[in-house]
């Protein structure tokens, strides 16, 4: 089922959360809405679900306008940021809730409900915890219960609000891969909201990068990373250095090359003199903080450990920088 939003506008009081957003999400796609807090990504997700009503614009599922459909009839699976599990129900009862809530003509028989709940719990690897209460589960387990509960009603689309936000780093990474696999197995059109660019780039088929209620760029993770459409996108997708010249030039830390001596005949003629201010070991990479000697600013460069060993850099050493890949944007006035 494809999702299409057209020209959606939403204001809260004087705050413009969404400003004329249009977006098409294809059938079977796993789509990420990525942006800083306040960019309107969660509001957009809630409007798609029907939990929020847009001031203007339309939401279509498979070319069918669903604006008039109440949230309980839109057949969306929604996973809340804090899971919103029913605290007074066991895991199995939580998952069964949606099936039991169906009108009696469509409601499966009791044995069938039980069957389907167990199948779902098998899928999320929680079959042995069916009778536990939510308070007795870990964060990752709760997340999987919430997913099973949302999938139990066989939704047409699956919407996830910051699905990994409340988990610690290790669980988060495991669950991320697991969700990707689940999505590929079930094949349901899914949208998730995140402020974590790694998460969006790793998990999604396509990413919408949002800022101030607008979509700055929409594309595959590769496209948005390689060809960012604006300074905002570039800066949001990772650390970036700003070179002040005639125009603002952005360079990612891994694209800053360091050499101990002046390089003759450099491509851009850029031999920026700098002094090493700090060397930070970040596990697989080494982050080097550099103070420019020709301009009052600092830069960051990222080297692999091997490169760092080869160069044998020392703190306080004078080096020359050149740039491998740079980004310049038109109309780039905001800082």
């Amino acid at each position: 089922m494809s999702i299409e939003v057209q020209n959606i506008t939403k204001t809260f009081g004087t705050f413009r959360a969404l400003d004329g957003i249009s977006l098409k999400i294809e059938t079977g796609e796993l789509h990420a809405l990525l942006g800083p807090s306040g960019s309107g990504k969660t509001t957009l997700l809630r409007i798609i679900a029907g939990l929020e009503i847009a001031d203007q614009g339309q939401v279509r599922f498979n070319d069918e306008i669903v604006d008039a459909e109440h949230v309980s009839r839109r057949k969306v699976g929604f996973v809340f940021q804090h899971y919103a599990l029913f605290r007074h129900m066991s895991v199995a009862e939580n998952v069964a809730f949606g099936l039991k809530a169906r009108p009696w003509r469509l409601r499966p028989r009791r044995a069938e409900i039980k069957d389907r709940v167990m199948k779902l719990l098998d899928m999320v690897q929680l079959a042995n915890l069916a009778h536990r209460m939510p308070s007795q589960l870990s964060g990752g387990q709760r997340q999987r219960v919430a997913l099973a509960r949302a999938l139990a009603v066989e939704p047409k689309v699956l919407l996830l609000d910051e699905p990994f936000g409340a988990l610690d780093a290790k669980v988060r990474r495991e669950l991320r891969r697991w969700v990707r696999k689940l999505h590929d197995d079930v094949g349901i059109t899914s949208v998730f909201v995140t402020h974590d660019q790694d998460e969006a780039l790793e998990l999604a088929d396509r990413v919408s990068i949002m800022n101030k209620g607008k979509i700055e760029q929409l594309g595959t993770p590769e496209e948005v990373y390689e060809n960012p459409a604006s300074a905002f996108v570039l800066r949001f997708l990772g650390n970036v250095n700003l070179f002040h010249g005639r125009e603002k030039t952005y360079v990612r830390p891994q694209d800053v090359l360091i050499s101990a001596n002046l390089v003759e005949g450099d491509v851009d003629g850029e031999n920026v003199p700098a002094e090493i201010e700090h060397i930070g070991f970040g596990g697989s990479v080494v982050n080097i903080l550099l103070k420019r000697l020709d301009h009052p600013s600092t830069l960051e460069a990222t080297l692999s450990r091997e490169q760092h060993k080869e160069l044998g850099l020392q703190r306080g050493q004078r080096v020359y920088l050149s740039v491998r890949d740079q980004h310049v944007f038109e109309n780039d006035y905001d800082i």
Partner: protein
Amino acid sequence: MSAPAPVVIAPTDASVLPAHLRHPTAAIGKWIGVSFTVLFLTAMIILPAANIFRQAFGISWESLRSPSQLVEDVKAGVPRYFQVFRMPEQDSSTMARPERRKYQSARAQAEKTRSAIGMTLGIAAIVVPLNLLFGLAAAWAVTKFRFRGRTLFVSLIDLPFAVSPVVAGLIFVLLMGRVGFCGDWATKISWPVPTSLEWQGFAQSWIPLGFSNWQRGIIFTPFAIALASIFVTFPFIARALIPLMQNQGTEQEQAALTLGAGGWRMFFKVTLPQIKWALLYGTILCLARCVGEFGAVSVVSGSTDPNDTMPLRIEKLWQEYNTQAAFSVASLLAVVSVMTLLLKIVIEKRAAAQFSDKKQEAQ
């Protein structure tokens, strides 16, 4: 998830200063604090409460010293206690005239006392369900919606706490009495007595049930007593629910909606189970207050014997120098209080258990 407030915050270990942080003089403070509290509670609550039962069973001070006297007192006291509520039937024709009059008067008094107990239970049976509905609706409206005048609405819920019950009663008298604002209407209206509901067959109308007893007017009737009791007790349930529902937010309800639940299912399967302890707690407080209310009821009851509730009956017995009977009826109210207290402890424990669930979930 924000840390939610429980119905009543049970003392947690966090509220106790760890022993190694205490100042050496803290031991003296603890001793003074504990002994003063114990003395105060004994003088103000435990002794008066015990005295109610002593007087009700007619146990004399001497029996504190001699056990044989105590046995004797109890032997005489227990039947007399029950005679306050029901005078056993005796053949009064053989009695001498003074005995007969005494017996007949005691029988009449017991009759009135029983009617007062019935009145109190009847009023509670009407008031508590109504306030349950009102409290739920008010808490629901205040916590799950934002509307103009919401703050004023919340303050109005608290109004009965701020108004003296006598004034509350007087409000109804001034509103619905003969010269009151709605007096013309309120003295002419007639209403059915709920206990007179009976099977009347299909002869008169297509509804076979009907009331055989209708009363006229509102003020100085049980109708007014119910109104005054509703006024005095309506904040209890709403007050117990509002803080809890405020902290719970609406996320679980939203989840229920996305899963296809309608409004009723959402309320009965998701909202209600989560507030049940607070609801029960508020209901018990409401019931206890309704049964024990004196001031407001006294003003609107008109002091006629059939309109007496238990507290009014106690006062009348006391005024008639029937001390033993007054304390006997009071002992029933004391039992209600003790039961309220016990239930409150149980509920607090259950609510605290629910609270600790939530704390884990917040992590």
